[in-house]
C-alpha cells in the first residue's frame, strides 16, 4: 500500500552504508516537517534508519515491508520545534479526549499530521487531512460539527484550529499535547511484516 510522501529515496539493491548516505543527502533538500520514504532491500537498514533518526533528531515514523523491499518513513525535524505558543483558546488534554471516546457523544476527530505519520498510529475513528492541504480541502468538512483537532505535539493542530475558526467553524477544540503522548488505543494501517520486526510507531 502506498503512503503519500514528499520525497522517495530508492536505495533498493544497495548495501550499507548507501541507504543512509542517500537518505541523509535527500533530507538536506527537504523542508522541515516533510516526509521522506526510503526504499531499501538491505536488512541492516531496518535498525540503522531508526538509530540514524534518533541520532539526528528526525522523526522516525515506521517501516513496512513488501516482499524484499523495506519502506522506511522519516519526517524531517523542525530545528525550532520548540513549542510555538499554543494560541487557540479552546483545548482539551489527551486524557479528556480519551474519556470522550468512551462516551456516546457524537463528535469528529481531525488529524492534521502527514499521511505517513497517520498511517503508523492514530486515534481510532480520526480522519486525516494534513495541515498543508487543509485550506484547499476545507469544503470536505462541516462547519457545524464538534471537531477535535490533533497532531503530534499541538502546534500544527493549533494552526489548523485557528484556520478553521477563521473560516467560520463553530465548535473547534485543539487536543494537547497530541499523539506524541497518546496513551489510549492506537489504530494503524495493517502492514505485513516478516520475522519479529513489528511496525514501530514514531515519537
Amino acid at each position: 500500500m502506498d503512503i503519500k510522501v514528499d520525497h522517495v529515496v530508492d536505495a533498493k539493491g544497495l548495501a550499507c552504508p548507501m541507504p543512509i548516505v542517500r537518505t541523509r543527502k535527500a533530507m538536506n533538500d527537504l523542508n522541515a516537517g516533510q516526509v521522506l520514504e526510503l526504499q531499501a532491500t538491505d536488512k541492516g537498514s531496518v535498525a540503522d534508519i531508526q538509530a540514524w533518526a534518533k541520532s539526528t533528531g528526525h522523526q522516525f515514523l515506521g517501516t513496512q515491508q513488501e516482499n524484499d523491499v523495506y519502506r522506511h518513513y522519516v519526517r524531517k525535524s523542525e530545528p525550532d520545534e520548540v513549542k510555538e505558543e499554543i494560541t487557540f483558546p479552546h483545548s482539551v488534554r489527551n486524557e479528556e479526549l480519551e474519556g470522550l471516546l468512551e462516551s456516546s457523544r457524537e463528535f469528529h476527530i481531525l488529524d492534521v499530521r502527514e499521511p505517513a505519520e497517520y498511517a503508523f498510529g492514530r486515534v481510532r475513528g480520526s480522519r486525516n487531512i494534513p495541515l498543508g492541504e487543509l485550506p484547499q480541502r476545507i469544503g470536505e468538512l462541516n462547519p457545524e460539527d464538534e471537531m477535535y483537532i490533533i497532531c503530534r505535539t499541538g502546534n500544527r493542530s493549533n494552526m489548523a484550529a485557528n484556520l478553521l475558526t477563521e473560516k467560520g467553524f463553530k465548535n473547534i477544540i485543539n487536543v494537547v499535547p497530541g499523539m506524541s503522548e497518546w496513551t489510549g488505543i492506537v489504530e494503524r494501517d495493517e502492514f505485513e511484516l516478516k520475522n519479529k520486526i513489528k511496525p514501530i510507531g514514531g515519537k
Partner: protein
Amino acid sequence: MSEETKQLSLMKMTPHALTQIVAGQEELFILDVRNEAEFSDWKIEGENIEIINIPYFDLLDGVDPALERIPASKRLLVVCAKEGSSQFIGEQIVEAGREHVYYLEGGMKQWSEYLEPIKVGDLKSGGEIYQFVRIGKGCLSYMVLSGGEAVVIDTARMIQPYIDFAAMHGVQIKHVLDTHLHADHISGGRALSEATGASYWLPPKDAEEVTFSYHELVENEDLLIGDGKVNIHPIYTPGHTIGSTTFLVDSEYLLTGDILFVASIGRPDLAGKAEDWVGDLRHSLYGLYSGMPDGLIVLPAHFGKVTELDKRGQVSAKLGDLFTDNPGLNISDETTFRRTVTENLPPQPHAYQEIRQTNMGKIQPDEEERREMEMGPNRCAVHDH
C-alpha cells in the same frame, strides 16, 4: 613512487587473521561502526583488543570524531555488520593519513560464522582429533579422523567447512553426533549427514519431538571408526538438557557438550526445566565426572570468554585441573549449587526457543532467518557474565 607520495591504502583482514590476533593476544584497536544496539548486544573480544563504537552514520560528515579517539600507534580494524560501511569509513581514515588501517572481511556476519580448525592431538589408537573453533560465537565442534573415516560432533550450521576439511584429509564422514539438542545455535548435524551420507545420532531423550529419523545414542554402545580401532563411547550425563551425552573418544578425550566448560558449567534452564534438572546436573558433574581419570582432556561445546583460548586458539583442559580451578566444580553445598545454577543466570540466548524448534525440525526458517536467529553471544554457561 617517492616517499612523500607514498600511497596508503585500506587493507583487508580475514577472519582467520583476526582469529590469530585474538588467540595470540596481540594488540589491536577496533572501531565498530554498527549501531549502538547491535554493538552492545555483541562485539569482538580479545585480551589486548581495545574497541570503541561510533555508528557509521555519525561519521558521514567526516571521520574526525573517530580520529580523536584512535591511537595512531596501533593497528586499526574497522568493523561493521557486513563490510560495506567499514570500507566506507576505513577509506576516509586512510585518506586522513592514518596507516595500518584494515577492514574486516565479511564483517560481523562472517565473523559469526567463521570456523577455525585446530588440531587438538593424535589418537593413541591411530588418527587425530580437531577442534573447530567458531570464535565469533564461542561454539566448539569436533572432527575425529582415523583410517580414512571421520566423525563430526556438534556440527555448526555452516557445514561446508567440515566437508572441505574431510576432503582435504582424504576421509569420509561416517557419523555425525550431537551431544544434546542445542538451544544457542542451529545444528548442522542433519544437513551434514544428508550431504555426506553419514548417520546422524542424537540422544533419544532430547529427540522425543524431532520430526525426522535419527539413530539413538545409547550409553555404552560405542561407535567405532578407523577399522574399529578408535571408539567413541557415549556416557549419559543429563543436566543441561535431559538427554545430554558426553563422549569419551579413544579413552582420552572427554567431549562434555554443554555440561562442563573450561571456566564454567552448563545451565539447566534453557528447556524450561531448571528446577527439575538441577539434581541431574549435579550428579553428572559431581557424581560421574568426579570418578573419571584426572588426565582426561576435556573438550567442551563452548567457551565463554576469549581468555579460555590458548595461544593457538584452542579450548581444552585436563579434567583434574578443572576440579581445582573451575568454580562450577567447587560448590560443595547442594543448596548453594542449586542457587548458582538457577538464579541470576545470564540472559537466555537470542531466539533460543526458535533455535530449539528448528533443531527439532518443527520449523524450517530460510537461510537468512537462520543466520538472524544465531546472531549474538551463546550464553550457555552459568558464569558467562
